[in-house]
């Protein structure tokens, strides 16, 4: 893009004597001083491993020999009960946890946006705090809270006359615990994002809707939420991607057990790749995760983004 023109060199002549410069007087390669280091890092630590992983997903390594196996690794997944379990678990979390959490976050955001509520900043901080815990630390805390014998949650349940629950060792309850702890950590986080979205919608909109005779509920469903759509979409997509990539929480809380009830594709690929050293298969699983993320994000984008023009 550095087009040399006579006027440019004249200007340059009066200023500094720099060998190569474009017409604005900046050195020709200055942009690479700034963008270069990151670009090199992207090539070495992103583009190369990305290509390598794609290639690997078509290979199999046995006894130190790597052979091309075509689509075998991908075909393997459909007969692998652990992989199928991990997909089902992810589906359950997606269907239950994401809507539950987004709904909670939306309610919280609306409540925290009420002008009559005092100490709104404090409330926001209180609800946001769970998002500030170290991922592993919060999983550890829930492990202790949910301990079957004498864990705080079971003690409270006992005080209320309920029988103790085997939170982390029963498949259904283990999923419930995972969903509960994820909701605890991320609901406030999403609420803060949605709250900022609500605040960018002016007060006038509420007043205008009220003047037109709309009640509070109608104002929100007909006027406010449609405008919140892009922010909601952001929350839904990032939460979906987070769920599809779930690892830290279930690895720490349950190691994927009991009986693979909380196994997720990423935890499974970690086990396959780094405990069984089956690199080709792990790479194939990773690419299936990428494909699923791409498809679901695209669908959500279409589905949620569609009505914006109306």
């Amino acid at each position, binding site marked *: 893009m550095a087009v040399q023109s006579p006027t440019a060199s004249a200007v340059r002549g009066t200023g500094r004597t720099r060998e190569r410069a474009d017409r604005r007087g900046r050195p020709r390669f200055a942009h690479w*001083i700034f963008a270069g280091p990151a670009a090199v890092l992207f090539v070495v630590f992103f583009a190369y491993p990305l290509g390598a992983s794609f290639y690997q997903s078509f290979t199999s390594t046995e006894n130190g020999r790597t052979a091309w196996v075509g689509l075998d690794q991908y075909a393997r997944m459909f007969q692998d009960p652990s992989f199928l379990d991990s997909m089902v678990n992810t589906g359950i979390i997606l269907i239950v946890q994401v809507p539950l959490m987004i709904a909670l976050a939306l309610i919280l955001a609306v409540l925290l946006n*009420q002008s009559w*509520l005092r100490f709104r900043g404090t409330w926001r901080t209180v609800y946001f705090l769970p998002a500030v815990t170290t991922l592993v630390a919060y999983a*550890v805390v829930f492990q202790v809270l949910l301990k079957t014998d004498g864990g705080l949650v079971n003690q409270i349940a006992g005080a209320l006359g309920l029988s103790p629950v085997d939170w982390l060792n029963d498949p259904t309850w283990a999923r419930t615990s995972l969903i509960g702890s994820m909701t605890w950590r991320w609901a406030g986080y999403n609420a803060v994002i949605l709250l900022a979205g609500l605040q960018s919608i002016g007060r006038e909109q509420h007043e205008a809707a009220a003047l037109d005779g709309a009640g509070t509920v109608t104002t929100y469903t007909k006027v406010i939420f449609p405008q919140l759509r892009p922010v909601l979409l952001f929350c839904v997509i990032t939460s979906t991607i987070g769920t599809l990539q779930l690892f830290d929480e279930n690895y720490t809380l349950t190691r994927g057990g009991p009986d693979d009830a909380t196994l997720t594709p990423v935890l499974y690929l970690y086990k396959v790749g780094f405990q069984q050293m089956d*690199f080709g298969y792990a790479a194939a699983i990773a690419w299936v995760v990428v494909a699923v993320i791409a498809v679901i994000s695209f669908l959500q984008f279409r589905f949620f983004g569609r009505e914006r023009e109306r």
Partner: protein
Amino acid sequence: MSTPTETTRRGHRGRIAPVRLGRWLIRLGLLLGGVLSLIPFLWMAIAATHRTGDLFHSPPPLLPGGELLHNLERLQDSVGFGRVMLNSLGVAVVHTFLSSLLSAMCGYGLAKFRFRGRGVLLGVVLGTMMIPLQVLLVPLFQMMASLGWVNTYQAVIIPFLANSFGILLMRQGFLDFPDELLESARIDGSGELRTFYRVVLPCVRPQLGALVIFTFMTQWNSFIWPLLMLNTEDKYTVPIALNTLTGLSHVDYSGLMLGSLLATLPLLLVFLLFQRQFVAGLLGGALKG
């Protein structure tokens, strides 16, 4: 004269009462939710000051006990937690510094220069945001192994220095920077790097602050990659050490809770001090796109 006002007032009150009740119910709901939000923190703090055996007795301890120092001692003996905290701090600080600097530089390059390959680079930056890190794990692991970098901090830090979120956030900040100012700095004979450091960077302090805080917190939490890279206790970062403690056959729960508390405290501190910047960083992706 006073009758109409009275009737309107009464009518007003009649409408207000349910609204008031509703507001109090909302306050009550918020309070309950807030308690649920905070209980794990409180329990973490209380449990860190009791013996493991006392945590699971009925009734559970509700006030701080006197075992904090003993727990700290055991935590230090089991994984050398003091060292672990310093490791985490060191890795997070170095990573945050380098990564933020790189993001600022690359964001500036993309915002203020037009050059061949700019579109491609921008595409790559956007693309990395969509590709989950897990795809890269196996080849990166093999790469680190062949470089002999396994169990070193450069392996933890370097591969993830180029941060696309940061680059886009900074680029957004630089886009508004007036070109005329750059021109006049160049006419004054200021070098490109000097201009960047002295003139441009101070103007994007809010975005830079948000990025620094966000990067620090992300790196402090970072789990799967350090878990793969670091395999001796003296190199562990906080999440890896906590994970090791949960995997022991005889889990020291109060030590673990103290460890979790110590792991969370720096984040809480950073968050409470820089809440505004933190939320700004969070929203960088949501509102500006």
